[in-house]
């Protein structure tokens, strides 16, 4: 089980992702699903992600969903809403949603903006998120 290391990628990898591609692959680790967000989360992509995530949660009876945002350098109120929406849907399906790898500057900015990321749980890294999800069972 490797730690989700913070990617050193550049700012905003906005390479025109149209829909789900390898940038947003859903990986299964035991009974958890992991998505590492590398691409720009725009409307269409966010909806696609949400849809395919829910399908997979049901298909594999996942107990948890982990979104790794360590490659995301900017999270504004819009992205926050998308993450909260995903968190809510995951909870409706009876699973828990974790966001891992939020960058310090991103956390600071969200707090100052007064934007709440309240429909998801957070963990420092993949290891800790998996540990907490395991404890739930």
């Amino acid at each position, binding site marked *: 089980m490797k730690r989700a290391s913070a990617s050193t990628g550049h700012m905003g990898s906005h390479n025109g992702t149209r829909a789900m591609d390898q940038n947003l692959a859903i990986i299964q680790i035991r009974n958890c699903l992991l998505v590492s967000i590398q691409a720009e989360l725009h409307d269409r992509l966010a909806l696609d992600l949400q849809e395919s995530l829910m399908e997979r949660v049901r298909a594999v009876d996942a107990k948890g969903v982990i979104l790794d945002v360590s490659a995301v350098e900017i999270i504004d109120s819009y992205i926050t809403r998308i993450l909260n929406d995903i968190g809510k849907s995951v909870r409706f399906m009876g699973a828990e949603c974790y*966001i891992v790898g939020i960058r*310090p500057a991103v*956390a*600071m900015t969200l707090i100052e903006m007064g934007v709440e990321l309240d429909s998801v749980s*957070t963990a420092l890294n993949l290891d800790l998120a998996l540990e907490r999800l395991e404890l739930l069972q």
Partner: protein
Amino acid sequence: MQPEDPQTIVEFSHERLEDLIQALAYAAIDDFDACMSLLREDGSDTFAWLEAGFNDFLGQLKIIKADLQGALARAEVSNRELEAKLETIERQQAAIRELSTPLIEVWSGVLCLPVVGIVDSQRSAEMTESLLEAIVNKQARIAIIDITGIDAMDTKTADHFIKMAKAVRLLGADCTLSGINPAIAQTLTHIGVDLTGVRTMRNLRDALQTFLREQSAINLKIHAGQAQG
């Protein structure tokens, strides 16, 4: 001074004129000693008046110049002193800034930030930034903010600490506030600060003990789970 007759032709040797010019040249380069030695005072003819006039004038110039240079030198010295003082202040400010966020890793994965003194928005921002960076760099699971060194807290300061705790939790670490003194506890109740999501402990030792106890409970549970599975 006698009224001068414009028709009078002043008699003087070429040497005396040369000396006068030489003296003025010395004066121009601030060598007043050499200058004065060239000006004669023994003459009694008309040219001697000119020499005497120059003598007076240059003598005064010498004194004024010396005064001025003394003042300049003094200004220079005090200027240098001021600069040195400014530099010291800047160095001290940097040191204080550094000292204002002494982050200590008291246990593996446990960071402690003892806060002393006045916490304004600039300082709280600096503290939060260093704390968040350290949490991610050291992958610390818990941050203990120890405010034993703070005597009084107003709404604004309390708000800074709540923001700090929220930011820590956003990263996925837990935040514990320790060392709240009775006066602060009363103030916080009085102004109705919402401390949900922020754990409070009497002191650093209690905070650390709680963390260790919980950690071993978690480990036990994981091992039990693995044994069953």
